C-alpha cells in the first residue's frame, strides 16, 4: 500500500483505536500520557511513511510504537511504582504481527465509548471528549465543528479529562442492570454528534460529513457487540444512514442548499439507503418503540419515495403524531407542521401553528420563521412571507442557510422552503 492509497482518515481512526486499547490496558488516569504517546507514534509514521510505502500492517506498527512510547513515558514520569513492567510489555516486531493483540480492539473502543459518555460528565463534555478521544479530532477541529472558540473547547477538554481520570478508572462495558441507562446516554451523544455534522454549525460548510460518519461508525461498534446490539441502536443507525444518503444532493455546485423537493435523487447514495432499510428492519424487534424508531421510520418514507410528490405524507403524519406523544419539543412540532401543511393546506397549518406560539423559545428559532414564511406564501400573503423570511435570515447562524433564505427573499421564486430541524433538516 502506498501512502497515497492509504485509507481515508487512517490516522484519525487509528488514534481513536489505539487510545482506546492503551486506556483499556493502563486505566483512565493515564489518559494524558496515552494521548501523547499515540501522537508521537503518528508523528513518527508521518515522517517515515512520507518517504516511501506504508508498512504491511500500519495498525500494528502504530500500536507497537505507541505502546513502547507509553512505557518509556511512564518510566520517565516515575509512575512505575504502580506498574511492574514485565519485558512482555515491550512489543517487538514478531509479537505484534500476532493478530490476537489487535483482535480485542473493537471491544476496547466500545468500552471507551461508555467511558466518554460516563454520567460524571455533562453532555457537552461527553460530546467533546468523544470527538477527541474516539474521533481523533484536534481541539481546533472540534471548535470549528461545534462553532465554539478554541479556548472554550480546550477548557472543556481539560475539565472533562480531569473527571475522566478520576471517576472512571478501569474501562468496562456497564453491567446488565445499568446498561440500558448508560446506553441511552451514549445514543444521545451519538445522535447529537450526527446532528451537529448534519446541520453543520460551522459557518461555511453545511454538512460536516466526517462528524456524521464518525457517529455512524460509533453506532456500528455498538451493534457489533452482542450485549449492546439493541433495537434502539439499530433504529438510530437506520436514521443516520437514511439522512447521510442525501449528502451529495444537498448542496449544489455553487455551494447552495437544495431542498428535498428539488434534490436530484440520482445523487442519493442507494447503498446507504439500503443500509438504512437493513437496520430499520433489524430494529423492529422487542417491545419498545423509541423516538429513534419513529424518526427512522419517517426518514425511510422520505428516502424510499420515488419522488417528492409521491411521498407518503399521511403515514409520515401518523408517525409524527406518535412522536409528539413521546416528545413535545417545539422542533418536533414544527417538523410535524410541515407535513400537516402538505395534507391540510397552509391556512389550517397556520391555525395549527398557534399551538406552538405559546412556547416563547420558538421566537428565537429561525426555522419557525422560515416555515411560517412558507405557509404564508402558500396562503398568498406575500408581504407577510417576506417579513418572516427576513427574520429567519437574521436568526440563522449558518452562512449557507442564510444565503439560501436570502435568495428566496429577494427573488420570490421559491421552491418549497420547508425545513425540519434538529432531528434532521428537510433537506
Amino acid at each position, binding site marked *: 500500500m502506498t*501512502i*497515497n492509497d492509504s485509507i481515508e482518515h487512517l490516522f484519525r481512526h*487509528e488514534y481513536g483505536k489505539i487510545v482506546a486499547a492503551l486506556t483499556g490496558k493502563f486505566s483512565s488516569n493515564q489518559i494524558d500520557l496515552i494521548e501523547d504517546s499515540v501522537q508521537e507514534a503518528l508523528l513518527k*509514521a*508521518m515522517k517515515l511513511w512520507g518517504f516511501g510505502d506504508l508498512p504491511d500492517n500500519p495498525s500494528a506498527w502504530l500500536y507497537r510504537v505507541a505502546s513502547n512510547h507509553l512505557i518509556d513515558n511512564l518510566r520517565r514520569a516515575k509512575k512505575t511504582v504502580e506498574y511492574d513492567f514485565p519485558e512482555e510489555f515491550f512489543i517487538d516486531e514478531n509479537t505484534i504481527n500476532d493478530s490476537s493483540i489487535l483482535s480485542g480492539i473493537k471491544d476496547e473502543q466500545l468500552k471507551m465509548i461508555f467511558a466518554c459518555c460516563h454520567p460524571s460528565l455533562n453532555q457537552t463534555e461527553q460530546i467533546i471528549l468523544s470527538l477527541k478521544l474516539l474521533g*481523533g479530532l*484536534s481541539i481546533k477541529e472540534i471548535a470549528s465543528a461545534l462553532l465554539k472558540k478554541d479556548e472554550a473547547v480546550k477548557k472543556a477538554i481539560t475539565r472533562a479529562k480531569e473527571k475522566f481520570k478520576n471517576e472512571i478508572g478501569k474501562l468496562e462495558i456497564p453491567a446488565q442492570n445499568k446498561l440500558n441507562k448508560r446506553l441511552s446516554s451514549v445514543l444521545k451523544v451519538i445522535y447529537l454528534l450526527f446532528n451537529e455534522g448534519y446541520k453543520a454549525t460551522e459557518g461555511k460548510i453545511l454538512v460536516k460529513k466526517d462528524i456524521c460518519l464518525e457517529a455512524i461508525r460509533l453506532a456500528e461498534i455498538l451493534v457489533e457487540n452482542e450485549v449492546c446490539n439493541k433495537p434502539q441502536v439499530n433504529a438510530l443507525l437506520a436514521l443516520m444512514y437514511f439522512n447521510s444518503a442525501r449528502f451529495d444532493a444537498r448542496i449544489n455546485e455553487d455551494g447552495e442548499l437544495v431542498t428535498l423537493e428539488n434534490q436530484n435523487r440520482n445523487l442519493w447514495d442507494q447503498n446507504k439507503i439500503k443500509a438504512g432499510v437493513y437496520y430499520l428492519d433489524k430494529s423492529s424487534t422487542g417491545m419498545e418503540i423509541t423516538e429513534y424508531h419513529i424518526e427512522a421510520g419517517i426518514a425511510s418514507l422520505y428516502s424510499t419515495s420515488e419522488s417528492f410528490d409521491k411521498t407518503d405524507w399521511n403515514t409520515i403524519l401518523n408517525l409524527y403524531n406518535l412522536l409528539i406523544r413521546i416528545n413535545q419539543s417545539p422542533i418536533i412540532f414544527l417538523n410535524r407542521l410541515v407535513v400537516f401543511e402538505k395534507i391540510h393546506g397552509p391556512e389550517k397549518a397556520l391555525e395549527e401553528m398557534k399551538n406552538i406560539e405559546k412556547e416563547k423559545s420558538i421566537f428565537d428559532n429561525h426555522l419557525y420563521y422560515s416555515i411560517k414564511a412558507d405557509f404564508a406564501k402558500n396562503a398568498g400573503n406575500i408581504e407577510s412571507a417576506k417579513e418572516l423570511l427576513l427574520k429567519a435570515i437574521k436568526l440563522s447562524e449558518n452562512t449557507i442557510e442564510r444565503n439560501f433564505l436570502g435568495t428566496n427573499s429577494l427573488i420570490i421564486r421559491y421552491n418549497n422552503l420547508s425545513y425540519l430541524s434538529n432531528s434532521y433538516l428537510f433537506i
Partner: protein
Amino acid sequence: MAKYMYLFRGGDSRRENQSPEEMQAHMQKWGVWMKGLAEKGILVDGLPLGKEGKVVSGEKKVVTDGPFAEGKEIVGGYLIVNADSLDKAVEISNGCPLFEHDGQVEVREIMSMDI
C-alpha cells in the same frame, strides 16, 4: 549532472501540533512530492532522522547525548537528488512540504570524483 544533499531543519512546532487528520494529509504531500522526484529520476535516496542521538567529539572521542541544538537547527532528515546545478537543485527543493511548516532546506553539492 551532480548529486546534491538536502538537509531538512525546523518546522517542529507546527508539525507536532497537527491533528491526526492533518498529519495524514501532510504525509501524503511528502509522498506525492517524493514520488514525483523518483519518477523523474531525480531522487537518489532520503530518510528522516531519529530524534535521539549522540555526539562524539574531539581527539578524546568524548560521547555526549545530543545534538541538543535549538530545535530549528537540528537536522530532521535528508534527501539526495540528481540535478544539473546548484540553482536547479534549489528550484527542485521548492516543492518540499516542509516549507508549509515554516521549515528550512539546506542545499549542498555532494563532491564527486569528476570535478
